[in-house]
């Protein structure tokens, strides 16, 4: 295996072309001897992307995704680190399970897999999981989330927020007031009325975020809000941030692009939780991401087996794969604002997750975690062409800009010429 590379003529964050030199896992200031040349003419170099919200499905649903296949999909999408959500089977609510996921990630070696631990035992929302044990484990868990379920009990949420202060932890909340979303199938509005699908009202998200920012403020803890989906949530976050609450928030690529009108096909490939919202919400989310009220883009990559999607809408599992299309979608939404993209998809998520070797500037001395993007390429999304084990992309047939040409993890290519290297 070569360990020295010259990446020739890459445009770092859109600046004038320059050569990048990689040796022994780090960026260096001059061409190493015996370096392999990677032509990067016309390509933009970004720090390797970091996903704060990935469902890798292992253990439990290896038919939909494994740590390895999900890691490969991530690398193909330009990622060098992903945070693996805890709603596996068994749930990642013990040191044993998070260490298992962490080890599988190391063995795959395609991205850094940082496990997220469950907040409550079995995601049941009743009793705190052993957060400290997960923090002290080899996986060094810092983010805790019951994602898929909301930590709805206000007292439990308060305790969780307080408890993780001991190890600078953060609670990532899936904001969904469960009583307001019983049986919910899609965004509550004109389209849900027309389709006869039970509505998921925006207020069910906004009410939890409002409560949680107040709790976080009260106990002085860090709160992260997963997949913000409504214009009203943006306003709650804006006010909280203005008061100095330690809250960060993410938006998914699909909530930046797609609307609830897509449910009219009843094709569950468009079923996701939180649901696709209205054009007005999409507009507010885009503005909030640019403004920084929403800090980052996170994929909520949620692979599902064919039988869980090829069925009636109400019976389908919610979720969409997203790792391989995230950057193209964000590029289509933000345009070639490379520094902004690097901030929202690499620097800030790395900082929130405490991943100190990711999201760094591409300069000598730093770990060579980077991705090369061809901004001029256009690609029609073909589900069968995805690297993920699952096919549930909502973008089938959509033309998206940008192609990930290469990804380097600690100086070794995980993707070259658009092909996974292992």
């Amino acid at each position, binding site marked *: 295996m070569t360990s020295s590379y010259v990446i020739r003529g890459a445009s770092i964050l859109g600046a004038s072309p320059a050569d990048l030199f990689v040796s022994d896992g780090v960026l260096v200031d001059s061409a190493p001897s015996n370096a392999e040349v990677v032509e990067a003419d016309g390509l933009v170099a970004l720090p390797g992307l970091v996903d704060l919200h990935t469902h890798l499905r292992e253990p439990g649903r290896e038919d939909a995704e494994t740590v390895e296949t999900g890691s490969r999909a991530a690398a193909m999408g330009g990622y060098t680190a992903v945070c693996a959500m805890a709603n596996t089977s068994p749930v990642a609510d013990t040191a044993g399970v998070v260490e298992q996921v962490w080890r599988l990630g190391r063995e795959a070696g395609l991205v850094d897999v940082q496990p997220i631990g469950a907040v409550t035992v079995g995601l049941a929302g009743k009793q705190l999981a052993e957060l400290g044990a997960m923090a002290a484990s080899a996986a060094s868990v810092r983010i805790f989330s019951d994602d898929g379920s909301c930590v709805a009990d206000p007292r439990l949420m308060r305790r969780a927020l307080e408890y993780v202060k001991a190890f600078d932890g953060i609670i990532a909340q899936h904001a969904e007031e469960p009583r307001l979303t019983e049986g919910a*199938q899609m965004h*509550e*509005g*004109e389209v*849900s*009325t*027309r*389709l*006869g*699908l*039970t*509505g998921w009202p925006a207020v069910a998200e906004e009410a939890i975020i409002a409560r949680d920012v107040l709790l976080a403020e009260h106990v002085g803890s860090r709160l992260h809000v997963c997949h913000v989906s409504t214009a009203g949530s943006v306003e709650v976050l804006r006010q909280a941030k203005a008061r100095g609450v330690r809250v960060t928030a993410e938006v998914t690529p699909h909530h930046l692009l797609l609307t609830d009108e897509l449910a009219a*096909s*009843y*094709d569950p490939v468009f079923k996701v939780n939180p649901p696709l919202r209205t054009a007005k919400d999409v507009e507010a989310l885009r503005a909030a991401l640019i403004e920084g009220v929403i800090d980052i883009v996170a994929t909520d990559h949620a692979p599902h087996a064919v*039988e869980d999607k*090829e*069925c*009636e*809408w*109400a*019976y389908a599992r919610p979720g969409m794969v997203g790792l391989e299309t995230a950057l193209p979608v964000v590029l289509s939404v933000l345009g070639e604002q490379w520094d902004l993209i690097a901030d929202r998809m690499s620097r800030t998520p790395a900082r929130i997750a405490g991943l100190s070797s990711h999201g760094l500037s591409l300069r000598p001395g730093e770990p060579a975690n980077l991705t090369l993007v061809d901004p001029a390429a256009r690609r029609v999304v073909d589900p069968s062409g995805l690297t993920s084990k699952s096919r549930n992309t909502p973008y089938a047939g959509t033309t998206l800009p940008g192609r990930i040409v290469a990804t380097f993890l600690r100086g070794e290519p995980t993707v070259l010429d658009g092909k996974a290297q292992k």
Partner: protein
Amino acid sequence: MIKHLLSAADLDADTATLILDTAGEMAALAEREVKKLPTLRGRTVVNLFYEDSTRTRISFEAAAKRLSADVINFSAKGSSVSKGESLKDTALTLQAMGADAVVIRHPASGAPDRLSSWVDGSVINAGDGTHEHPTQALLDAYTMRSRLGKLDGLNVAIVGDVLHSRVARSNVLLLTTLGAKVTLVGPPTLIPLSPGAAVSYDLDSVLPGADVVMMLRVQTERMQDSYFPSAREYSRRYGLDAARMRRLPEHAIVMHPGPMNRGMEIAPEVADSKRSTIVEQVANGVSARMAVLYLLLGGKA
């Protein structure tokens, strides 16, 4: 002619009128001694019922048989359906059987839409979840037109649990297409957002101007979900009793898609009054469904 009938929105005014006119011809046929038409001889109509609805299934079965079609009943009980076979696999089976039309009743909204992407034959929605029940709307429109002579300009009040009613959704769409003015009446908890029609929370104020009052079935279980406090309070505010019926204009009719909760949304003396169309709705159901099968399967009017 359209291929599938998944939603009342699939019907423009001309198509809907053609179906109603054809239903009229079918009703005339029912008066004859020989009640069968050879039109669909050799064609296969499958009744695919994932919900118990003997009334609707029998209505479709009678309609198909009067058109001489072969009818296969595929019900959720005692078939592979209840063993968890997926809708797609069932669709492939029906496809292999050469079904020309599949009449589907399903508890999940949109199931007929899904089915239509997996079979070549026509799909007719016989009620899907809380979405639509377009043939019910057709038979209701047919009944109104028979009794009142027209649909254009009629004031129709649809009263009750609009939120969960597929009958209401299909009726709003079809009646609006045909020029009637629909007002939805019920407690605010049971009226959906943006319902596509006028809304009133006060039944008494709507009745004097109504040509048609359609009472929807209200399930008492809705109380548990706090949609309303009690059956008694519901009935007092939104039930159609004899006193309320007297507020209606002389010519106005009272409809109910059945099955009724007598004493809840409708008083027995109202259900059995001469204004009530409840019995003829059943007969009209067969005619309307004959018209739909006839036209969708390529019969010429």
